[in-house]
């Protein structure tokens, strides 16, 4: 399993670059062009990152989460889900930047190779901003009755979160 994980990245790069060379495109110039776009994109998300980090850090530093967890703790019972992951799981469907900010906090506090750090990484990777995507896509074609789209999307996210938890236990 570990080898399979490690082989994905190098394999990807070699396929992409070889295919580019085979198709006779200027791989170096194309790379530079794409990298420049990436630079612009990263800077353009900076305001959103500031906004989200600001709100989330205030929320986390106030320890309101601790109070909230005390309230719902009896409901969670025996599930040994680390509490740090809960706000991330709740915010993931709405804002990718918010969940990214929480993942950053988790890495800072526990390290990326801790259980919760790995769980956060997998969670961020296996779900998407469901609510945002549905609002954007249906909004552009002016559909107001979305039927069961949102619920199925959120159900899929929930399954993803549970599987992420199980796999983190299995893999590491």
């Amino acid at each position, binding site marked *: 399993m570990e080898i399979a*994980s490690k082989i994905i990245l190098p394999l*990807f790069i070699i396929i*992409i*670059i070889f*295919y580019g060379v085979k*198709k006779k*495109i200027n791989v170096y110039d*194309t*790379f530079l062009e*794409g*990298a420049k*776009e*990436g630079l612009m*994109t*990263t800077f353009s998300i*900076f305001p959103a990152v*500031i906004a989200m*980090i*600001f*709100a989330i850090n*205030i*929320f*986390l*530093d*106030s*320890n*309101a989460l601790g109070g909230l967890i005390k309230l719902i703790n009896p409901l969670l019972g025996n599930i040994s889900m680390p509490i740090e992951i809960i706000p991330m799981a709740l*915010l993931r*469907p*709405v804002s990718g930047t918010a969940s*990214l*900010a929480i*993942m950053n906090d988790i*890495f800072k506090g526990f390290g*990326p*190779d801790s259980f919760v750090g*790995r769980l956060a990484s*997998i969670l*961020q*990777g*296996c*779900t*998407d901003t469901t609510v945002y*995507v549905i609002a954007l*896509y*249906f909004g*552009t074609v*002016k559909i*107001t009755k979305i039927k*069961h*789209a949102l619920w*199925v*999307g959120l*159900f*899929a996210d929930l*399954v*993803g979160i549970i*599987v*992420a938890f199980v*796999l983190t236990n299995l893999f590491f």
Partner: protein
Amino acid sequence: MVGYIWAFLIGVGVIYSLCTGNINVINESILSNANDALDLILNLLPTIVLWTGILKIAEDSGLLDKFAKLLSPILCRLFPDIPKNNKALGYISSNIAANMLGLGSAATPAGLKAMNELQEINQKKDTASTPMITFLVLNTAGVTLIPTTILALRVAYNSASPGEIILPAIMATACSSVAGVTLDYFIRRRNRKWK
């Protein structure tokens, strides 16, 4: 919606800390927050720039289109209601392929075009059609082969093996996609029976 959540997080944080006497902590937090955001961006920047460069090669060389073509026979089966040779299927495959490669900027335009095509063949213009819902379920399950931002952050925090989460993440995505598509299928079948 994001606006409400944003205001909620700040509001709850400030009020809770006032009530519990954590006022010093919250002051410190407010003043140092913006620096954290800059750190985060700087951590993300190098890996993202590298990957967008590499993925641009995949896009320009036609590898992305080829990948989309490979996907379309599988996707065909999920969308029995879309007439054969309709453009929507092509856009849907491009969208899913771009999402898989982490090319968000290429995925969204293809996705919106797919929605427009689906709206053309939609009977009731204000109501989501079956293929639209299936498409969005697939899309929001978020299959990503190379999760660039996550890798970037793991590298920045000195992970011993930044890529180790890729495989479990793909497996978890596969499970959630299958769960979403299956649930969608059963809801559709039940609705048909009642009609």
